[in-house]
């Protein structure tokens, strides 16, 4: 139970807030690969992904107190931060104007019930991988174009030469499935 407690990411973040370097080291070991993999997928360059990995974890060290468990799991916090930083980088180097992405934290977040974090990361991953492979190609494509490539609904519709309504529907249906994988 003690080991479980040590590995609990929320507990680690609380220790990081109080300047615990060891907790930070553990937190890094746990999530570095996830952040790096995601960064690599978003930026397409190893050097850029390494820079982003370092940037994200420096933010973890310096701003761990800004994590609020009521708004989501540490994974969601890290993933949202990684994507937001990546989009900023892509925007700064690309002349093409990407659509605005959702900010790290919407304005005026107050109250709300706690979001259930994914139970048992490994199991979840296996489940997700299995489920995602079953996701219809069309739904998976629109989700990836938006989430990984930073395209807006209009840009996706233009690229796929599909009506905007169709794109929206595919996105919502795909997300509905993803939400279904969350622990009840």
């Amino acid at each position: 139970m003690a080991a479980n407690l040590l590995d609990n990411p929320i507990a680690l973040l609380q220790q990081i807030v109080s300047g615990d370097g060891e907790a930070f080291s553990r937190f890094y070991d746990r999530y570095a690969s996830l952040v790096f993999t995601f960064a690599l997928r978003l930026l397409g360059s190893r050097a850029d992904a390494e820079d982003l990995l370092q940037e994200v974890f420096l933010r973890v060290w310096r701003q761990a107190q800004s994590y609020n468990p009521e708004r989501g799991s540490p994974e969601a916090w890290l993933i949202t931060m990684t994507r937001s930083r990546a989009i900023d980088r892509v925007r700064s180097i690309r002349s093409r104007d990407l659509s605005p992405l959702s900010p790290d934290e919407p304005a005026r977040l107050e109250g709300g019930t706690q979001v259930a974090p994914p139970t048992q990361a490994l199991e979840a991953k296996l489940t997700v991988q299995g489920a995602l492979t079953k996701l219809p190609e069309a739904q998976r494509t629109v989700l990836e174009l938006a989430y990984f490539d930073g395209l807006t609904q209009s840009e996706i519709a233009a690229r796929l030469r599909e009506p905007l309504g169709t794109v929206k529907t595919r996105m919502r249906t795909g997300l509905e499935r993803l939400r279904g994988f969350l622990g009840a």
Partner: protein
Amino acid sequence: MNHQVNMNHQDWLAQADIYALGALDGDELIAFEAHLAAGCPECEQHLYKTREALTFLPQALEPVTPPPTVKARLLAQITAEAAIQQPVTRLPRRWWWWIGVSALAAAGLLVALSFKLYQTQQEVQRLQRLVASQQTTITEREEALQAERHELQRATEMVATLRAELAKREATLEAEQRERERVERVVATLQGELGERDAALRLLSAPQVNLVRLAGLSPSPRANAHLLWNPAAQAGVLLTSGLPQVPRDRVYELWAFVGKEPVPAGIFQVDEAGHGFLRLPPLPRAKRYDRFAVTSEPAGGVPKPTGPVHLLGSL
């Protein structure tokens, strides 16, 4: 939450899905952000849940392990920050961890720094080669520029020399022109004098010419004059010496007397040596002139003598 929003809230939740994906755009984005800003806990919770679900997408990717240098750099950085920021009381409890981390960080840093040093050395060598080549180019250009400067200086000097030469020649030409004009004036004067002397010579060589001597009177006792007088031609020439020069506003005037009646016979001036010369103008004919006198008179002469008599003589 008002009635209108309630009625459409399923639509807002649908927009929240696309917003969470970062794919909402245009007016829909503006409207949804306004809706969120107005405060909608239901949409916020939906967003959190959707973001949670979206983490499955990166989690489903084939994992890639980052290089250990990233962690080494991070630990080096946070160790440095912790050393500055953390209170001293925390240190004893965690000293062993920080030492471990510091050593790891130092090792990582050493690797990173060694590579950086190598890169820097390569860059320095490249820059040194670049600087050397630039310096060669600069030297060549400076030499070319120097040569052009010499050439320009030489040309400038030549122009200056030519200008000086030209000025000298112009001055010489001007002086020569002045000299020529002076000579021409002298020649004209001499020609005039020569004409007078020719006339005097002709008069003198005529057989019936009389020589009249005029003697100096009290104003000029040492003066004298000779008048060559041709009674037939009623013409003559007067040569004087020893007369003082008169002021600018006065002249000497010669008078020819018919009995006691004086007739004006010309005006003249004398030079510095006291010599005077007068070729007599034509006098009224059919009169016998037997005495001659010279007086000093106002400039231009007068019809009857008014001034003192300087010279007097008779036939």
